[in-house]
């Protein structure tokens, strides 16, 4: 089975939010909540000023804290490493929302918890996630982490620097950030799943 992962090259992201719009449309995400958002950070004082766009979403952790807390098994990890919610068995208790360190889950008004699925419905048809396909700067790569020739594996190998969000949480995210500017250093390397 593949082990799906995504990499986002922060040196190439221009914060256009095309990925966020594509996600919203593709997945019919309700108003008021987001599966994907762009964080814009500005640091420093003129003339020593830096700025960074960072798209954020569910990281499909290898050790997801949101899964074991689910009382019905609706939150689960698929054989190919996707962290998903089965809407049919979700009771919308919010335990997974509380457990997620990345604020990536939300209550869908239709009565279950929603989150990024890496567009599983597209993956099974051999397509890329909507955010990856839409990105005009090609800063997003997606694929099988166990395949050394996949786009994501090659992008990670070629990167000057690889970071994950909140490595101290021990979640081993499968969404990684490449080439983070030094002053926005997220974390030490070596936290890859």
């Amino acid at each position, binding site marked *: 089975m593949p082990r799906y992962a995504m990499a986002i090259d922060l040196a190439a992201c221009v*914060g256009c*939010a095309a990925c*966020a719009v594509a996600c919203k449309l593709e997945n019919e995400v309700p108003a008021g*909540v*987001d599966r*994907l*958002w*762009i*964080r*814009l*950070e*500005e*640091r*420093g*004082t*003129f003339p020593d*000023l830096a700025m960074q766009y960072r798209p*954020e979403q569910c990281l499909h952790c290898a050790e997801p*804290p949101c899964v*074991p*807390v*689910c*009382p*019905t*098994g*609706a939150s689960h990890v698929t054989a190919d490493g996707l962290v998903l919610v089965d809407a*049919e*068995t*979700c*009771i*919308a*208790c*919010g*335990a997974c*929302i*509380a*457990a*997620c*360190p*990345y*604020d*990536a*889950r*939300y*209550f*869908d*008004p*239709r*009565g*279950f918890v929603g989150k990024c699925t890496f567009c599983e419905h597209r993956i099974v048809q051999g397509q890329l996630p909507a955010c990856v396909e839409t990105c005009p700067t090609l800063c997003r790569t997606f694929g099988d982490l166990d395949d050394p020739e996949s786009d994501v594996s090659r992008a990670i190998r070629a990167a000057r620097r690889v970071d994950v969000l*909140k490595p101290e*949480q021990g979640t081993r995210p499968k969404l990684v950030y490449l080439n983070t500017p030094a002053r926005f250093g997220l974390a030490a390397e070596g936290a890859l799943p």
Partner: protein
Amino acid sequence: MTGAAASITTFYGAPNSAAFWHWPTLLHFVLVAVAGGVALLVAYRALSGARFTWRLPALALALIVLDLGVLWGESLARWRLTHVYLFLSFQPASAIWWGAWGLAGSAALTALLALGWGPRRGWGALLLVTSSLALLYPGLVLAANAARPLWTPLLLVFMPVTGLLIAWGLALLLGQRDLGVAVGALALAGAALGGLYLAGLAAGPGGARAALEHLWHEAGVWFALALAAMLVSPALLRRYPAVAALLAVAGAVLARSLLVEIGQVMGPPF
């Protein structure tokens, strides 16, 4: 941008960082304590061979039904009837799964005890287990969230102690006079654990200290008042048992509710 060093964060879209549990969940965290605590009292009475009428187990059952009704009413999934999967799945790593079985078991056992059917001591022993689950599970639910610094492992003890205090304090108000000493002890334990909780945050890493500052900023005075109410109440038990019980219950309800409400914050930064 000139002048002072700056760090500004803005968003296109937004992380889902707003509070996810609102007042009905806070109410549930109180009601489950009352229901579990009264059910535990029923179990104790049944095991000790003490005389009690159908009213006490019926009260426990009514409280459980009320609590489950609040949970159902506030759930976004209430019309989808997915709650049945709580009992069709096996999820022992989930505190809520244990809590569901604790409440369902307690409901069945208190019904049997109220009706006077079957072995009273046997049901009492089982009820001891299921009501304990109902009391323990809120602390387990909160302490499982490592990313939320105000929900520390100390809540594993603080929540059942204050839960039992609320239930038995109310029972004392309703005339269960023999619970006076227990209520006093629980109130002291609740205040001490609250102090320990604050000390633990103050002595913890940067994230814990920032969380403590956040708690203080949001509701520090109220939390201090809640702990003070629990601390003072044992001193009033002998002369003014009703006032003492009221103070203890109010302090415990306030402290629990503040921790659930404010503890939802992710941190740092706040």
